[in-house]
């Protein structure tokens, strides 16, 4: 058995297992940790697929940065938040699993019809990665994907602005008026006339 096959068959089940683990564990922290492991297995897959640059980025960005951010927020908001696993929506879990399985089956069918389960990737990726994967990537990125790359910069600015607006707002920028109008708002304003609910605006619908 070739090495890449071995690696795949070790990491693929691990990947699935950690994915499922992320769902079933109670604690959000544990779920995040499962996800970190999962991301790592995916990074290994990248390696198998001759994408060493993405392997590195995956570990640095996802496992390193994003998941740390997640853990940070989990800790910030309290570890036990939303830990209740009790099914509060009737049939949600069962249906979700059914549709999940359905999606897998459907996609697998498409893959089988489109690619074929036995098809192996053609050799010769080495020539594509001739001068090393990162520099080959860079060439494609800055030639063909120059424009989307610029767009991502806009995207990141928007994200930064968004975070700023959302985060800064609470601390200072509430006007007096906003506070004054605060008392009666919210629940009443948005609740849609639940029977006997706290007075909707203007009474019941005709």
């Amino acid at each position: 058995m070739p090495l890449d096959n071995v690696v795949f068959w070790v990491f693929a089940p691990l990947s699935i297992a950690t994915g499922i683990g992320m769902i079933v564990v109670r604690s959000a922290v544990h779920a995040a940790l499962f996800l970190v492991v999962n991301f790592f297995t995916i990074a290994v897959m990248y390696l198998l697929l001759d994408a060493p640059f993405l392997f590195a980025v995956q570990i640095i960005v996802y496992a390193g940065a994003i998941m740390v951010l997640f853990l940070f927020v989990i800790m910030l908001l309290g570890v036990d938040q939303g830990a209740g696993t009790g099914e509060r929506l009737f049939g949600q879990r069962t249906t979700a699993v059914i549709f999940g399985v359905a999606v897998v089956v459907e996609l697998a069918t498409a893959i089988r019809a489109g690619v074929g389960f036995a098809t192996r990737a053609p050799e010769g990726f080495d020539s594509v990665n001739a001068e090393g994967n990162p520099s080959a990537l860079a060439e494609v990125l800055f030639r063909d994907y120059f424009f989307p790359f610029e767009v991502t910069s806009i995207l990141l600015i928007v994200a930064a602005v968004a975070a700023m607006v959302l985060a800064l707002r609470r601390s200072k920028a509430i006007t007096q008026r906003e506070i004054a109008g605060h008392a009666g708002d919210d629940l009443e304003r948005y609740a849609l006339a639940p029977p006997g609910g706290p007075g909707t605006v203007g009474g019941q619908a005709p």
Partner: protein
Amino acid sequence: MRTPIAYFLVLSAILFAIGSVAVLVRPNALRIFMGVELQLNAVNLTLVAFSRMHLELDGQILAFFSMVVAAAEVVVGLAIIVAVFRRTATTDVDRASVLRG
């Protein structure tokens, strides 16, 4: 490489589905969001696999863009979740249901 490319694709599909289920079964906004992250990663795997299949790097570039997008989404998403938490003291999305009907 000896492993058929479809294996990666199917693995990706399974991970995508797991991500979807993760979105659906947990009321905690953060864990929902983790599910989404898993989905995006699954798609990245597909992209890289296809890139390998087509013997070109475009797929990897797409995966790279996808990571950037994911990062941006995380920033905004976590900020929103925090903002909601500050307002309602919960990250349980099921509790956030004044808008309905």
